[in-house]
């Protein structure tokens, strides 16, 4: 589970508990200017994820860490597909983040509000 928040001009994604360990990352800070949008997308778990390096991938249980797929670098931290949110980025190391959050709709609304000021 990740906690997504807006802090000043940044979007901050913090991993909680053991997910820090699986994802090998505890915190990501992205300038809001580089956030293109956020989407609730349970179906993305069914897509090919590419090669994991580094991180943890136990299919159907946990997808966490950095994945390389078709020239894109995607950060994953998801167990429960129903709670997956996709955050699309520009000019960042990661093309997109796919993270599990407690309330996907609220997170999407927050990101949209923060990026459309």
């Amino acid at each position, binding site marked *: 589970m990740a906690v997504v928040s807006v802090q000043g001009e940044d979007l901050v994604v913090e991993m909680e508990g053991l997910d820090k360990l699986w994802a090998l990352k505890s915190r990501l800070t992205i300038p809001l200017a580089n956030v293109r949008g956020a*989407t*609730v*997308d349970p*179906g993305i778990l069914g*897509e090919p994820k590419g090669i994991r390096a580094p991180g943890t991938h136990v299919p159907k249980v946990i997808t966490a860490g950095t994945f390389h*797929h078709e020239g*894109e670098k995607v950060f994953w931290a998801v167990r429960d597909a129903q709670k997956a949110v*996709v955050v*699309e980025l520009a000019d960042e190391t990661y093309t997109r983040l796919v993270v599990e959050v407690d309330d996907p709709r609220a997170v999407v609304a927050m990101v949209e509000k923060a990026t459309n000021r």
Partner: protein
Amino acid sequence: MGRRRSFDVDEVVEAAAELFAGRSYDGVSIDDLVKRLGVHRNSLYGVFGSKRGVYLAALRRHIDQEVRPHLARAAEPGVALTWDLLLLAAVDRAPDDAEVAELVSAVFAELDEAMGDPAATEVLLGRWLRRRPEAGRHGVPAEQDAPETAPGEGI
């Protein structure tokens, strides 16, 4: 349809507009979009950034190609307006999305101008809404030739 990595953006936006015209925003998932548009999920995100990005592109296209060119003849009798996405946007998304509200309000203002009177816009929109339950999808009335005969009225 196979999923395409590169695609004609306008073609995809047109298909998205059709999908959003028939269902509420929340009722359309990325799975639905990927399936209907026949594109890769990654490409969809890469081009539009988010579901909202796809929706805004679809609404803009709808307004530019299906609403604006018909403003002048909107009040003519017998004209079946195919503005479902616009109406749905007004009630479904405009309250939650300032950009959608702006797009919809701007078109309504243009309609006022074309009609010459805001009251005429209200009559037009009211009549359109009124007929909606009887009309089929895309605004085509179910009984276009016999508007006077309501079911049960015949002998």
